[in-house]
């Protein structure tokens, strides 16, 4: 066997089902799929945002509770931080650190949901049937809240699997997927928050 062939054998990974190389290969494909889903989902959110700017421009926003708005926004942003910590700790094999931080993320996410759906929707001066603006307000917050809700389910599944010892530092694609999805929901709110609460004057 020539030295050229030997070198070739050394750099070529052994691909077998269940091997780490195989896991990385599938992880790469899963990652691509997740990002494609996120990009396509972004178009739906972008459509809702365009509708909002078409209806109200930069002059008005729905007459909503400002204090509640900033409170739920801060909660969601902080939840993203704990999700980042959870994923980072998992990457370094700290399962207990992951479960603790993921739990805080879930609590903050649940508080966000309660703040928007349980409080904001109840105290808003108009309902979803009171014209296009309010209809759009409920659609935007409702669609986003649904994403937060599904993110919470995904996080709970991942949290439970981590407690059962299904993940480790090398194999934790589920954790990464849940984290990326959660941060995406946060990014969407970065655009929804000013659009619904801040830009322009309140319109009733």
């Amino acid at each position, binding site marked *: 066997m020539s030295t050229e062939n030997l070198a070739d054998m050394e750099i070529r990974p052994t691909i077998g089902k269940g091997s780490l190389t195989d896991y990385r290969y599938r992880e790469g494909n899963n990652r691509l799929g997740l990002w494609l889903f996120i990009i396509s989902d972004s178009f739906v959110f972008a459509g809702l945002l365009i509708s909002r700017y078409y209806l109200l421009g930069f002059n008005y926003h729905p007459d909503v509770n400002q204090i509640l708005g900033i409170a739920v926004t801060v909660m969601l942003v902080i939840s993203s931080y704990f*999700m980042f910590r959870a994923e980072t700790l998992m990457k370094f094999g700290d399962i207990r650190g992951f479960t603790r931080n993921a739990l805080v993320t879930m609590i903050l996410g649940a508080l966000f949901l309660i703040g928007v759906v349980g409080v904001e929707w109840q105290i808003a001066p108009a309902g979803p049937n009171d014209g296009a603006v309010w209809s759009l307000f409920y659609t935007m917050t409702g669609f986003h809240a649904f994403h937060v809700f599904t993110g919470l389910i995904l996080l709970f599944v991942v949290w439970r699997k981590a407690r059962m010892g299904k993940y480790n530092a090398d194999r934790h694609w589920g954790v990464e997927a849940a984290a990326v999805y959660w941060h995406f929901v946060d990014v969407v709110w970065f655009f929804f928050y000013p659009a619904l609460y801040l830009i322009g004057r309140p319109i009733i």
Partner: protein
Amino acid sequence: MEDEKKQALRLGTNIILFLLALTVVEFFIGAYLKIWWAGIILLIVSTTKSVFVVRDYMHVRRLFVGEEERH
């Protein structure tokens, strides 16, 4: 390994502080700056926040890194 972990967590902390600061700035711009182009500033702030989250929290670069570079 421990240093690497601390460094990664520190980056996350710096970013969250930056995001929270921008959120507060956003709130005050929305509350007190009643001019039409305040909306443009708010959109720029939102985009800035998003860039940091997509880059550092969502690790978008992992999409473009080959397996040989990761391991």
